[in-house]
């Protein structure tokens, strides 16, 4: 045996035996998952870049397309819902109002829908290489965040042009809303990605659900309009939707003209509670994901 081999054997003898694959269990498993993910952070970065680069590769306009979609949505809702159906009455700076909601909603929808199919889409890798499989839903989350960033720049640009740059105490709503949205969407993406491996119907179900849920949050109409028809427990149900709260929070932050508009009672408290619940949900979904991922390779 060569000296190099001896050195290697001796070094290996120092190491403890570890289990192959992911570790189950709640506390130790979570730590293990986090450590694993941290060790693969560079890969995560590369995968995010791959998602972004590959999406608009070979198209002439490239990244501009990721901007064109929300802008088109903005135009449609502004004209059809705002002007024709008259939703813009009573909402100042309706374009900024809609775009704020759309930006938040698009982030959520993109994380959930691309995340759901992420494991199945990367079947080749999942079957052939061991990686913490969370990197796939998380990489789609990353590329969704990139798109969100671009839209955010446009939104801020629009507020500057309108001369209504967000400022003051209402900015406090933004970080908590953002964390709430991100945690909730990622939790759903993890859970649905894992379930989708076993039941492919999930990805179609998600598409339809997202379509319905879009109208369950005050994106193209205002909370004041909801409050007029929904009282008591109906309003409570409406406000129990984390996305409703997150979008309301975003609007408090970015929609300066609406600083004096009607808001639900205790919005800030609700946001903090929803944020906490979402973080717990994220952790739970990650544990379920770990539990299910043992069978990914054979189910794909």
């Amino acid at each position, binding site marked *: 045996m060569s000296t*190099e081999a001896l050195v290697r054997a001796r070094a*290996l003898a120092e190491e*403890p035996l570890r289990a*192959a694959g992911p570790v189950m269990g709640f506390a130790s498993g979570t730590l293990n998952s986090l450590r694993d993910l941290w060790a693969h952070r560079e890969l995560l970065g590369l995968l995010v870049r791959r998602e972004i680069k590959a999406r608009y590769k070979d198209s002439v306009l490239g990244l501009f397309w990721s901007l064109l979609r929300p802008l088109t949505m903005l135009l449609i809702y502004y004209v059809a819902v705002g002007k024709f159906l008259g939703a813009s009455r009573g909402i100042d700076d309706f374009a900024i109002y809609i775009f704020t909601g759309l930006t938040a909603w698009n982030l959520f929808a993109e994380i959930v829908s691309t995340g759901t199919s992420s494991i199945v889409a990367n079947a080749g890798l999942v079957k052939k290489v061991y990686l913490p499989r969370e990197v796939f839903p998380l990489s789609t989350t990353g590329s969704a965040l990139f798109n969100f960033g671009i839209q955010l720049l446009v939104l801020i640009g629009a507020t500057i042009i309108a001369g209504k740059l967000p400022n003051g105490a209402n900015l406090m709503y933004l970080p908590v809303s953002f964390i709430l949205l991100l945690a909730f969407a990622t939790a759903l993406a993890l859970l649905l990605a894992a379930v989708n491996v076993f039941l492919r119907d999930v990805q179609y179900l998600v598409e339809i659900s997202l379509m319905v849920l879009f109208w369950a949050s005050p994106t193209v109409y205002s909370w004041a309009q909801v409050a007029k028809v929904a009282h008591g427990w109906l309003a409570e149900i409406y406000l129990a939707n984390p996305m409703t709260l997150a979008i309301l929070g975003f609007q408090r932050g970015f929609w300066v003209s609406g600083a004096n508009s009607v808001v639900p009672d205790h919005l800030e408290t609700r946001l903090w509670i929803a944020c906490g619940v979402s973080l717990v949900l994220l952790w739970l979904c990650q544990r379920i994901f770990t539990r299910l991922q043992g069978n990914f390779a054979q189910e794909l």
Partner: protein
Amino acid sequence: MSTTVICLENVSKRFIIRKEKSLKERIVNRGRSNLHKEDFWALNDVTLDIASGTSVGLVGPNGSGKSTLLKMIGGIIQPTSGSIRLRGRLAALLELGAGFHPDLTGRENVFLNASILGLTRSQTEGYFDAIVDFSGIERFIDTQVKFYSSGMYVRLAFAVAVHVNPDILLIDEVLAVGDEPFQRKCMDRIRGFQKEGRTIILVSHSLDQVADICDRAIVLENGAVKADGIPRVALRVLRDDFEITRLEDVERAQIAATMVGTTAIRARVAEVTLATDGALASHVTMRPGEDLKVRIRVETEEPLDDWFLGIAINTSLGQCVFATNTKLMEIALPRVTRAAEFQFRLPRVELGEGDYSVDAAVFLASGLEAHRLVEGAQIVVKASGRTLGFLHLEPEFTLL
């Protein structure tokens, strides 16, 4: 000194084969869901210890559980019961170019693939030139991978794979890629890995390759370890198995031939005897360069027309070093009614030192094998001991 790097204890894996996948099918078939399930034990109670620095070949017929075992060691699938524990960094080459994205350039894919295999960015940057150099496709490194030929694709993938720095390397049937010079480069690299004391676990259908590279072979059959030891002995077990399967196939082909009308002729090789210059025997000891006579006795129950006779000399591992038949030699054989003897004379047999066996077979005109006598006779070659390999030469050496 060696350490156990892989430790498997009573590992079993059950696959449940479900025949439905969609929600509708599951609901419709809910009551009968057990009818649509099938249990399949891919591995059954496997216990193994693998020491650091060994190269282990996993061999066995298709569906014996080799790849499943490899995937479980790699952590890609989990065992149903039992435990698998490891030491050290592991890299799995189960598929070349896993994670290559067709729309990214070669350069981007190198970084992505290296990262998937566990290299950090700075390490990849350090190895990048070596990787590109090894792959031999410098000119195309900034081209999108989708425009690559399949050869270029695997070259690049393999180049990345051999530059990862694992303690344990799992390889599944990926060594047979590229053209011959590239394959030789790969094999050199594998030998380098061995010298550095890395543990290699190789799944291969090429038994010669396993005999060549590995110092331990594990034969799996129906999910259980059938033989485990030095490759010569373990591969022997597997070859015997394959021989049985082959004989069954021959029999089936004969039956099939009878079915379609051509009568299968019951002819057989009754005996193979050898001689150098002395008496005929089923066992000869010879020196390289001597002449060898191979006498074959053929018996048949029905008249044998339009047929040919073949012989082969195999090494003790079953690798063929010489074979011929009367069809290749363009000799027409006469009709045989009951029995006949034939003789091949092989002049100056320059075999290297070692044990060999002689097979003889009767073929019908269609190429259908009527009978083969496996290891009909044995040859032991005793040489000077100054050379290795199957070919014997008298080397000369001069200082120039």
